[in-house]
């Protein structure tokens, strides 16, 4: 069960080897998390995260092979986790790919794959998880979106469009779950310095996985539905969203 501060005892993470997922898990393990299910693609990476968590006091860690693009397998995977572990207090959806915009523009098949991972798979996982949370009558679903979801930029619009889709989906899912005891938190970090963005020039208001994790834990405490990291991006993006196209383009591609 979640406590009064939104600290979960049982956690399920999709994309568990990501830097942000690991930072969130470290904080939850220091609080109440004692059972964690790690879903991801890289078995060795999952084992490494599992070891970290055992060292941090998590008594039960399970790793599950999860292929985002294989949407047909998602419902059975999610049902199995709920059946094996009973209540799942927090589900973190942290998988996603950034892609190389220039390459994606000339390789439609690759662009479709990225959209399938970032958006289609998120819908598939989100609906399966929502059914489980609704049945158990409580639980939080935290979805990692991006500021890129707010307004498409020339430099990463394939990625941005996929995040816009998943962002809209999870906000709507949150509305659909109102009154069920389950709650959705959409997290919109700016540029996060992680392995995913290694080698890219940092954008203004760049942040870290630790700051994103702090934002997630804080949202669980306060009951916020949308989290911006850093928080100032809420107001920055509110302005950018309404800029005329020519101005935005000049700003956006620096």
């Amino acid at each position, binding site marked *: *069960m979640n*406590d*009064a501060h939104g600290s979960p*005892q049982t956690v399920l993470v999709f994309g568990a080897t990501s830097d942000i997922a690991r930072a969130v898990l470290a904080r939850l393990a220091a609080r109440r998390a004692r059972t964690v299910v790690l879903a991801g693609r890289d078995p060795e990476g999952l084992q490494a995260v599992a070891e970290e968590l055992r060292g941090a006091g998590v008594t039960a860690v399970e790793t599950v092979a999860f292929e985002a693009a294989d949407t047909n397998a998602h419902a059975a995977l999610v049902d199995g986790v709920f059946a094996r572990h*009973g209540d799942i207090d927090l589900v973190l959806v942290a998988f996603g790919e950034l892609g190389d915009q220039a390459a994606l523009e000339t390789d439609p098949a690759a662009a479709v794959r990225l959209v399938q991972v970032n958006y289609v798979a998120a819908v598939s996982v989100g609906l399966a998880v929502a059914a489980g949370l609704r*049945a158990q009558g409580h639980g939080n679903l935290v979805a990692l979106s991006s500021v890129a979801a707010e307004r498409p930029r020339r430099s990463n619009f394939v990625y941005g469009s996929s995040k816009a889709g998943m962002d809209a989906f999870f906000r709507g899912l949150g509305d659909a779950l109102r009154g069920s005891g389950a709650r959705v938190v959409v997290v919109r970090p700016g540029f996060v310095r992680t392995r995913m963005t290694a080698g890219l020039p940092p954008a203004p208001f760049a942040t870290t996985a630790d700051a994103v994790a702090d934002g997630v834990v804080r949202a669980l405490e306060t009951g916020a539905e949308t989290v911006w990291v850093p928080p100032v991006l809420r107001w920055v993006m509110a302005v950018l969203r309404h800029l005329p196209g020519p101005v935005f383009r000049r700003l956006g591609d620096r």
Partner: protein
Amino acid sequence: MARELLAGWGRTAPSSAEVTRPARPDAVVAALAGAPARGVIARGLGRSYGDAAQNAGGLVLSTLGLGGVAWADEAAGLVRAAGGASLDDVQRFLLPQGWALPVLPGTRHVTVGGAVAADVHGKNHGVDGSFARHVADLRLATPAGVAAVTPVGDPDLFWATAGGLGLTGVVLEATLRAAPVETAYVRVVSRRAADLDAVLAAMSAKDGRHRYAVAWLDALATGGATGRGVVSWGDTAGVADLPRRRQASPLATDHRRTVTLPRSAGAAALPGAAVTVVNRLRYCRAPATDVATVEALDRFLFPLDAVDGWNRLYGRAGFVQYQFVVPCTSADVVRVALERLRDAGCPPVLAVLKRLGAADPGPLSFPLPGWTLAVDFPAARAGLAGVLDGLDEMVAGAGGRVYLAKDARLRPELVGAMYPGLDRWRAVQRRVDPDGVLTSDLGRRLGLVPASAAGRPSSATAAPYPASTVGAG
């Protein structure tokens, strides 16, 4: 039956459940017999601060359809009340006839069943003990059947039910021993004390000499004034104590106006500066030496009942009330707790100190002889979760405990250390609920009941309880 979103009085961690409201005892028995996989818990007026009376994904049995108060034996002061009757109902029945319940908590809006399940105490614990001490018998609906439970006939089940958080069954009826009173008023003596030592000394000096004793602390005071407060003692007033205009009707209940907060009042949490000012005013307005007054019993015992829905003042994220007790020899824990909370930027909005007397035999009953501090905070205060975890360790280390009926955040690993009779309680709980029908969000969170009652497949684990919550002794 429709799913409803339910939360405790603190409005933290809501969950949804099917809610049924049986109008007769046999419907309660039927509900227990036909319990869904995620189990059943009873819920009264929802005054538990945390998640004791909610059951995510399962069935919540509202006892509010089970009302009624009548004499069982008027000459002996034995009153029979339904589990869903409120203490307000019982008091309204008793007072005009010159009787009163000996133990009343900080609100009269709790049910008889809830008062038993939390084994509530009042400002007179040192003299009168807790609620269950004045219960002659219970009619308890358990999954194993309806039982008449008395402290003599089945002491194990009686005391497992007193403070048992509803996890041993549904209280259908209780016979309560009332005490005769001449008036519905209290003679109150109050004065302020300049720091925590002065508060403790004042309360210790008069321990047992007055029926009621309570101290309100100004938790925002710093430095040498840390723990300063206003101490009040009280005794039931005789007719001669009342002002002449009240002597004609000494048992008339004080029908003060109740203020109801608008639903939108919770939009913004209490501003911190206002809290500081109110605390300072309250301290400075109190007399420096003993001043005697006569107050209506209701006003003295239930000051917060004057504002209906005061819990909404804390805003969307709700609030946490943290109450612990430590033995008299560990009064320093109270000081360290106040200092740590203040230094962490989490000074409580409200802080109340009482001295508790001898404990009841209930393994999960809260009171122990010692000092009890109750403090309220907005739940979303940054850093609060960590400070309270630290206080838990200190309280457990001192041989103390936190009040489970108010809990919404205790680390489950500490329950066994705080309640050494936990395993004994579990054995009785298993006896009346072998199939794990009774469960609640609190029961799941703290691992009080077997995991199978939490909707888990029974084959999932060999050990029914999480190893970390097995009792210490």
